[in-house]
């Protein structure tokens, strides 16, 4: 039987992650809800940040949830794609930045 590890319906189970550690779970949800709701940044800005992070982190649940949220907030497809490019550029940038370590070692080791 070929059952995937990730199933779309598991997203519905997210509220139940309080199970086995309810106090910590509730603290997490308080934090999560506050951090993702409008504050100094608007709900739109925060949803685009969340979408970029979800994509970078390869989380299918969060990509599903935040793509829907961005659509609901009337965010354009090209705005969403731009946000994903910010994530992609950051990943490329931090990969390349780590080449500094490599370059330093090469320079130290080579005659």
């Amino acid at each position, binding site marked *: 039987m070929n059952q995937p590890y990730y199933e779309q319906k598991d997203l519905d189970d997210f509220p139940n992650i309080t199970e086995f550690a309810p106090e910590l779970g509730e603290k997490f949800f308080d934090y999560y809800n506050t951090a993702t709701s409008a504050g100094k940044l608007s709900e739109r800005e925060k949803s685009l940040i969340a979408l970029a992070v979800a994509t970078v982190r390869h989380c299918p649940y969060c990509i599903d949830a935040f793509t829907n949220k961005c659509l609901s907030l*009337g965010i354009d497809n090209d705005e969403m794609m731009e946000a994903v490019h910010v994530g992609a550029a950051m990943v490329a940038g931090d990969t390349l930045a780590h080449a500094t370590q490599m370059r330093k070692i090469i320079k130290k080791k080579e005659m």
Partner: protein
Amino acid sequence: MTESAKLDNKDTFAEQLRQCGSYPLKAIAVNTLQMNITRKCNLACKHCHVQAGPHRTEMMSLETVSQCVKVAQHPSITTIDITGGSPEMHPDIDWLVSQMAQSGKRVLVRSNLVILLEPEYSHLIDKFAKNKIEIVGSLPDYRAQRSDRQRGNGIYDKIMEAMRLLNKAGYGRPDSGLLLDLMHNPAGAYLPGSQSALEAEYKRVLSQEHNVFFNTLFCLANCPIGRYLEYLKNSGNLDDYMQTLRKAFNPQTAQKVMCRTTVSVGWDGKLYDCDFNQVENLSVNSGSPDHIFTFNYNLLARRNIEIRDHCFACTAGSGSSCCGSLTV
């Protein structure tokens, strides 16, 4: 019958109401008389729950229109909500709005706005303004591409043009007393976001990029019936959409659904709890007379509402109605 019949009993709208102590759902008054005067429309939008279009012929007869005017005089009825199809295409629209305006009640006309550019109907802008009719224009999205996917190519630009004419006549201008509201509904299988956040975006884009103005944005969740239901089925989104509506059930909205204070009249004079039930052919029940010629305020004001699973569209998130979200 919708796909919802396949679901477990516990997932039905009735059961959700039971769990939050709102079952049976009962009317508390009739404050709004909604009249669906025609199924004819110059457009044929993809999401249209009444499946209106240029080839529809249903029109409310003058006799029925006059009866609605009589019924509307009841002191508890404070809002007259005229819709369609495109209500402008009804031959007696001029007479109807003047009659209703004389009652001094809030009278609103739901318009696709594009129709007001057609020579045959453009005189209605002045007519509506003179009678202080509130116009609720349908603009599914503040961006052309998404809006046009639902309404047809080039329609967005025409709506902007119509809004410019309405603004010129005073609509949507501060202190003119002429209200131009817009109706948002998602162009796809997802729910509307926060009404205030969307209103701010609509206002920013429409004023900065098109120099047009409006008063209030109403968000409406698409109801899984009619043409929209067909779209959900054909695109493989039906189960997911119903599940999204169910998950978003908000008990706080159950007491505020519009049917509790509304009666909706069909083009043939039949009475319904709302426009959605009208499409589903569910006329008012529970011993209340179900025709405008047998309108009985006392029975209708405490009738049991005919609920089905499409009602989940009214109770998702902040709730949804013909006048926008039910909670802030």
